[in-house]
């Protein structure tokens, strides 16, 4: 139990980082109504880009921006495969994701993982977030505002603020219209190919930036760090919706709910690891099962538990 409590701030920080990725997933899955599997690849692309650039002396903000940029490019590839080449969205995402596996290794100099040198205190000080800062803040070695929860929290608020503004603009509204009703969007003169590509680019940019933050946090990038990212993203979106949809109606709050969904997901996972003797290798199976169940519930509710059906059954 004490192990769980002491791991809580770290888990919450990590959850917040994944929350930024989940906000990216929200853009494609909820706003564009499209399942984009690129994220499993672009998450690592962001992490790899960041670690390599930072390692060669590029400042953190520039490296983060570059990570966002490569994510945008990954989204562009999937978008063009889908719209220009007519490949179904899911398959387009899988193709990009597969291709990115090689690209990610290439970025990392054909190694499966690359570490950030955090032994050097000067290097460590430059980072925005690190798991080490959690302990440092607790022991008073660093001020509270260096705590990853504070830093990532601020980044999240910034991301939500920008997205809230963007989706209120003419261009952002046309993206929402594309997801809500593509026929109507085209009848109103919206080039739905362009809006879909744009949405995928923004989404994967955020996903890659989230990957860059996670690489910083754990001080390495790993070629398999994005495996299952889409499932975590969906889990966060679903948990956020299930818990907060009744109180959070505003768009900005809905995005916040997604971020909180990711935190809750991570804390629960942490609890499972700490409080039971489950082999950590089963985590992906558990995650998949949880998300599958959550995705099924609305369908079951509609199919088996509507009032009319129940009454019909009672009559029979």
């Amino acid at each position, binding site marked *: 139990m004490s192990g769980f409590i002491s791991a809580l701030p770290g888990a919450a920080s990590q959850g917040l980082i994944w929350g930024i990725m989940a906000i990216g997933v929200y853009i494609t899955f909820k706003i564009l109504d499209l399942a984009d599997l690129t994220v499993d690849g672009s998450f690592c692309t962001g992490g790899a880009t960041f670690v390599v650039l930072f390692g060669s002396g590029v400042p953190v903000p520039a490296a983060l921006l570059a990570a966002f940029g490569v994510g945008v490019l990954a989204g562009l590839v999937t978008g063009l495969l889908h719209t220009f080449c007519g490949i179904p969205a899911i398959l387009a995402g899988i193709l990009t994701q597969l291709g990115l596996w090689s690209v990610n290794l290439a970025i990392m100099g054909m190694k499966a993982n690359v570490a950030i040198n955090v032994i050097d205190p000067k290097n460590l000080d430059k980072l925005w977030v690190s798991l080490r800062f959690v302990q440092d803040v607790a022991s008073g070695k660093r001020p509270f505002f260096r705590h990853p929860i504070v830093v990532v929290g601020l980044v999240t608020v910034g991301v939500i603020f920008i997205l809230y503004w*963007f989706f*209120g*603009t*003419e*261009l*952002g*509204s*046309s993206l*929402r*219209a594309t997801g*809500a*009703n593509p*026929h*109507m*969007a*085209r*009848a*109103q*003169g*919206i*080039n*739905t190919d362009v809006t879909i590509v744009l949405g995928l680019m923004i989404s994967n940019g955020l996903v890659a930036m989230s990957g860059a933050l996670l690489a910083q946090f754990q001080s390495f990038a790993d070629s398999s760090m994005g495996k299952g990212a889409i499932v975590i993203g969906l889990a966060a979106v679903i948990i956020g919706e299930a818990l907060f949809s009744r109180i959070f109606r505003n768009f900005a709050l809905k995005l916040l709910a997604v971020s909180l969904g990711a935190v809750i997901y991570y804390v629960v996972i942490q609890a499972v690891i700490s409080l039971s003797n489950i082999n950590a290798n089963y985590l992906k199976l558990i995650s998949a099962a949880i998300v599958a169940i959550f995705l099924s519930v609305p369908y079951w509710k509609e199919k088996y538990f509507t009032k009319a059906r129940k009454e019909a059954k009672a009559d029979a």
Partner: protein
Amino acid sequence: MLDINNIYKTFNPGTVNEKRALNGVNLHLAEGDFVTVIGSNGAGKSTVLNAIAGVWSVDSGSILIDGKDVTALPEHKRARYLGRVFQDPMTGTAATMQIQENLALAKRRGSRRTLRPGITKAEQEEYRELLRTLDLGLEDRMTAKVGLLSGGQRQALTLLMATLQQPKLLLLDEHTAALDPKTAEKVLDTTEAIINKYHLTAFMVTHNMKDAIAHGNRLIMMNEGKIIFDAAGEEKKKLTMRDLLDKFAEISGSSIQSDKVLLA
């Protein structure tokens, strides 16, 4: 205003499902013309409309709107010239967006979408006034999601959206077919009122012969991808239901499979 020159369209060519949908259609509409289009199922009424809207490209022939050749333009680029209302009330509006957001999207038809606000305060007032003219109480529900509206309300809203930027041509694709008779009549009255108000050129596909006779200054009948009857002016005014049924029997011979389709 509209020139359709000898257009052809075959769906699924070379397969067992091959369907010759348009078989050399020619049609010329003058500015202010309001044409009603009838014909049995599969005659090509909606196909002509979709060809004009650019849902897919035609195999041959050309389409000009206000003298501009739009044959090669994709759907979203033709949208600047066209206002459209669909058969399914779900198609014309975005259900998960607000009433005013839907109107704001329509307001920007034909212009570039920038990073300016998606809707302004001044627009909201304009929309409130416009919605009031529908007399459906929607002016008090501007921030409600369109998904909460009834079919008739959605069609009325779509009509408003289609004409918010005055279109060169208003395309109505059996837009009252999915509504109950009373609502259908109301939506049709609104349609007539809006067309008269802005002196719009309109192309209305309908399965209802009575409506086709009652509205517009021109009537065309289609069969097997061709226009087989075209009445305008005085001739159109004098048309009766019996005339149309006779006409149909005469031109298409024994191919009337069911009067029900025509009289529905």
